[in-house]
């Protein structure tokens, strides 16, 4: 029972990671950018969601508003920050991204205060759901549901729609895709939009899960997200999902059994390093 519970906890963690990491891997697959500032988008989503929820009392409204705000910010970051420096060495975009994250973390603090904000009404948070001796709160259940639904929608998008096919073609070879009439710029904007919407929704969910939205909430999950996309094999979507769930479970068991030696972040990165030393291309990445 104890192990089952740890497994479940790990899978829920994995679901939040997956929602962050999928966007990161989309961006990386297209542009080879480690998009650390995704954390900013995540945090913005959480704040917008919280403010809307507390003012209107509507959680549905909160999710829509968060998705829109995040979905707007992401493409803007691409257009005004990344696009002009795409031809520079990769660390340029990485450092620019870290700079944006640092600045915005403090920006959120100046705007909304350092203590963080809580939801005025958060019934999911306080409702426990028990089944077969296990007990979760309702937010955890919704996180799992949201991850499955959103990721399935994404899979449908990628395989069944014209835009999705164009996206996959651009990932595998931008110049050939362009010569077949795919608008590369449109594909990039769309990818940033999708990645950001996922991050924004994840932000609200994590905000509900902690019942706390705070300026620095995005950074750790973003660094973990980077670890996950590397672990999965950079730019590889199924690998990213597998790595997310795996890392969640490793952390959940690791904090119990390795807690005396390492903290949670160190456990995650130790796992990452070990896997990469054995498979340098990541779990499902293709060998180069």
């Amino acid at each position, binding site marked *: 029972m104890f192990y089952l519970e740890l497994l479940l906890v790990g899978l829920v963690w994995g679901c939040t990671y997956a929602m962050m990491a999928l966007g990161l891997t989309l961006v990386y697959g297209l542009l080879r950018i480690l998009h650390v500032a995704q954390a900013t988008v995540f945090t913005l989503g959480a704040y917008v969601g919280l403010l809307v929820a507390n003012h209107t009392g509507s959680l549905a409204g909160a999710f829509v508003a968060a998705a829109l705000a995040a979905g707007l910010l992401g493409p803007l970051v691409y257009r005004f920050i990344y696009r002009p420096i795409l031809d520079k060495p990769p660390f340029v975009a990485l450092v620019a991204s870290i700079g944006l994250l640092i600045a915005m973390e403090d920006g959120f603090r100046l705007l909304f205060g350092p*203590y963080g904000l809580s939801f005025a009404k958060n019934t999911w*948070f*306080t409702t426990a759901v028990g089944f077969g001796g296990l007990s*979760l*709160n309702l937010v955890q259940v919704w996180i799992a549901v949201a991850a499955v639904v959103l990721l399935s929608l994404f899979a449908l998008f990628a395989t069944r729609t014209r835009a999705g096919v164009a996206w996959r073609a651009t990932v595998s070879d931008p110049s050939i895709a362009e010569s077949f009439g795919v608008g590369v710029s449109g594909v990039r904007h769309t990818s940033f939009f999708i990645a950001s919407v996922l991050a924004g929704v994840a932000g609200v969910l994590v905000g509900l899960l902690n019942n706390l939205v705070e300026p620095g909430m995005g950074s750790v999950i973003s660094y973990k997200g980077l670890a996950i996309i590397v672990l999965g094999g950079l730019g590889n979507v199924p690998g990213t999902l597998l790595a997310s769930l795996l890392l969640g479970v490793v952390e959940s068991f690791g904090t119990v059994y390795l807690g005396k030696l390492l903290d*949670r972040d160190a456990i995650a990165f130790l796992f990452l390093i070990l896997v990469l030393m054995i498979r340098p291309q990541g779990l499902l990445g293709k060998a180069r």
Partner: protein
Amino acid sequence: MSIKSSSRLIFTALVAAAFAAPAAAQNIRIGFHAPLTGFAAADGKSAVQGAELAVEQINAAGGVNGRRLELVIQDDQARPDQALPLANKFIGDGLRVVVSGSYSGPTRAAAGVFHQAKVPYVSAYAIHPDITRAGNYVFRTSFMGEVQGRAAAKLIGDNLKKKKVTLVTLNNDFGQALSAGFKEVAGRFGIQIAAEHTYAMGDRQFGSIVASVKKDDPEALYVSGYFFNGGPLVAQLRAGGVTVPIIGTEGFDTHNFIAIAKDAAEGVMITTSLDRDSSAAPMRRFIADFETKFKVPADMVAASTHTALYVVAEGLRRGGVDDGARIRAAISGLKDFEVATGRISFNELGEVYKAAQIQVIRGGKFRHFATIDDPVLLAPPTK
């Protein structure tokens, strides 16, 4: 209080500092550093508020020997490498006394510098045991972590009669000190420690700890951390079906803790120095004035810095404003000095003895539960 007004206050303080040369004959300047930016900015803000309230109250009551106090506020980002130049800057600017409204890292790093320069230095809430050991110019007005841990052991073993306890410990100097103090005396109160689980500062998700606690099946939980860890932690424990009493620390002593944990906070007890139902005048006045000035309920960090400022002001009143050695002697000579966090006297190390206030959350508010006044159990170290 809004961000705008807080930054305006800081700005005012800084402008005042910049033009202080001609005005210095009038105002007594007190150095103050706190984490205004970075991960600890929440506590930094409370610290600044506590200090500002103290200065305002003291000035309204006529200042110190007819002169007004003035805060010179600097940001240390809770980083030791920021604190060193900052300490030297305070000394170079001729400040005679400095208060730390910051964490252990920067406070410990700065303490040595101030001691060498013979500038009295009062730490408001940093808990590292080595801070006061930097030298006899260094004081601390808060509980040491170990002492507070001992108070919690007595509360659980004696008052509540719970004998099987699981510890959930924040993995930083604060949490480790609390846990060490608790474990040191647990046996004396017949407490058997079922297990200890640790987590990191950045953690908000505690699923594996909740599962482990259920497996331990303790009679009570002793939980350390700050409100931003503790709020989610307590809520997740309750949602996970853990119903036993939860005992926390002064890190939870803020309304933000209750705002996050909501109903799950009901019944949680904490060891602290702030008694909301106190009849002591300085404590009552601090609680009332704080809420009037900042429109939010007072918290422990603010109370601690408020206390430190009062101690410094009293030192200046008795020791004069020019001579660090005399100010130091005046502070170390304080006996039964009444401040917002109780009645304090310094020992030879520069630590204080205070009674521990046990508060319980009822109806969404901190209320008095018990007072542990045991000078032997709660004695701070003397060397």
